[in-house]
């Protein structure tokens, strides 16, 4: 099987070891990093995304593919600067203060990571200051907030305001989600975006970065 075909198949099957081998091989064959990324890893994960949309793949399948892709990215990341590949856009994500619901937020984090982002996961019960600090420290492009309680939803507004106050408004986009969160609510609090589920969140993040 040609190398790229094998690489793509390995990502689809979620075979981390095989992905590493293929990427190593490609590197020693002097294939440009950009090519490995775009025509190999990203192409593969897009196929996985399609399969998920058609219900051929389930969430665990997608997450395995994502992990396999991440293993590949880790190998090529050191060469990004030397080639003309921009560094991965960074995303800060957390469940807001007062809220310890974790699963949905982690799923979003994994899906976003699977789509070629570097994710800084702050965990649960995260106060506004920590969102702001983290966005600033990592120069994150996107700040993602999850809330599963109607009682903690208002904190999202506080975080958006705190980001503005910190002068980060134009530099970071904000996205909100979680079972009780609606598009309408996102609009009201001035969030840049909303998604009802994890794949949608990743989709939107990609759109934003593509410009």
């Amino acid at each position: 099987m040609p190398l790229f075909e094998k690489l793509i198949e390995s990502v689809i099957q979620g075979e981390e070891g095989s992905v590493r081998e293929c990427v190593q091989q490609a590197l020693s064959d002097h294939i440009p990093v950009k090519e490995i990324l775009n025509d190999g890893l990203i192409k593969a994960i897009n196929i996985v995304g399609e399969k998920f949309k058609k219900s051929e793949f389930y969430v665990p399948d997608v997450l395995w593919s994502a992990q396999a892709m991440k293993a590949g990215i880790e190998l090529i990341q050191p060469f990004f600067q030397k080639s003309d590949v921009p560094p991965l856009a960074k995303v800060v994500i957390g469940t807001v203060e007062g809220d310890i619901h974790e699963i949905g937020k982690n799923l979003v984090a994994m899906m976003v990571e699977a789509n070629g982002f570097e994710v800084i996961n702050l965990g649960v019960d995260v106060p506004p200051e920590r969102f702001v600090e983290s966005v600033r420290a990592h120069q994150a492009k996107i700040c993602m907030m999850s809330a599963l309680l109607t009682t903690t939803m208002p904190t999202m507004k506080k975080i958006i305001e705190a980001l503005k106050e910190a002068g980060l408004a134009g530099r970071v986009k904000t996205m909100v989600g979680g079972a009780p969160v609606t598009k309408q609510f996102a609009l009201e609090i001035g969030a840049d975006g909303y998604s009802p589920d994890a794949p949608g969140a990743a989709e939107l993040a990609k759109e934003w970065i593509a410009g």
Partner: protein
Amino acid sequence: MAIGFKSQCVPTYRVLTEDQIKEIHLATLEVLEKVGVRILDEEGIQLLKEAGCQVKNENVLQIPRGLVEESIHSAPSSIQIYNRKGNEVMQLGGDHVYFGLGTDLIYTYDLKTGSLRRSCLQDVVNAAKTGDCLEEIDFIASFALAQDVPTNLMYIECFKALLENSIKPIFFTAAGAEDLSVILQMAEVVAGDEARLREKPFLIHYSEPTSPLSHSKSAIRKLFLCADKGIPINYTPALLAGATGPVTLAGAITVANAEALSGVVLHQRRAKGAPIISGFVATTMDMLTSTAVYGGPEFRLTHSACTDLYHYYGLPVWGTAGASDAHCFDQQAAMEATFSILMGTLEGANLIHDVGYLGQGLIGSPATIVMGSEIISYVKRIRRGFDISQEQIAMEVIQKVGPGGNFLTTESTRRLHRQEHWRPKYMNRDNPDMWKEKGSKTYGERVTQKALEILETHRPEPLPDSVRQKLEELIKKAEKSLMGIKFVV
């Protein structure tokens, strides 16, 4: 006839054999002893250390099996629950089955418009009235989330609404120990004082550990508060197999059981003999939509196993039924409610909540409560079974009527038809013409009609004025002390 022949046949069901129960129990003990549980509260850690638990790392503690067994033994095997007026109404334990409502639903499937909207305090009032009126509903709960009330007072106002609109026992949640302590003060006012509330509790607090294998600070503080005051607490995890627990049902059951039993240990160490209702829910996360499934078949299997385990432990056990993943009151809602109520009843869970839940724990529907009440009634008829005594076989009557006769006019038909034959309240048994004449209504329409009628006509017994006044005062004080503060999570 054989000696010791029991003439009453009662259908029951269990999923685990005694050997299988022991297998899961041993696996649970191994998880507690080797993997341990994460305790996010200093007082909780201290208490377990003193009880002989090893600190595995930082806040993960390993619980020795002796301590688990000891706590199972010290917890009461039966808990008497009263109503607001001090009458005995629920004996939680054994295979007594009681049904009631759930808490905290963000949306309401509106009775009049048939569409979804955000829940408000009036929906809590409506749920209380509905539960109060329906005889098959044994206990009430907020059902809706009062989103028109300031956050820190939400659960306090809900509790007041429940007190004012029903005399039935109250199953309730709180945001933290902060508002819980106000709610307990309110309950003391209703009962008379702290001692009388302890003696005749008409309320059960509901708090939960976090899967996998964690106890939040807030959950432990609520657990301890109830233990100290002798208030019955329902401390039970909701695990999602494949996400917050193993994907296999046996693995999910084992982990959830370890969470529940570590709660029993914490509780009994804090106050030996204090009342606790235990058990767990171990359902699946849907692997396509990544939602928490409320109406799936695995939910029923794991819950039947849970009930078998807690019957074996001799501890009162919690349950969930009458709930659905459907987003409106439709055929799916009916199907999932029926299966769950049937299995919950036959397995013999004690405190079965969530009747009327839709949309995977996000939507409340009063009409679904009414439907649930009829399913409960139906299923309880099944569970009552029938008698095979000589009189019931009715040999004499059979001889008397003989071939070709009719049984309609016999004395036994007249005397026994009411007790032998179950009667539906809202289900259709009319002939086609009669059905047309009555407006060709669907079951859903009739039940919705009934739900509306209850809200219009049912008058719950009010609280005495003096009590109401004292509650108002407590709430005023709480407004000052709780507004704007951050609760511990």
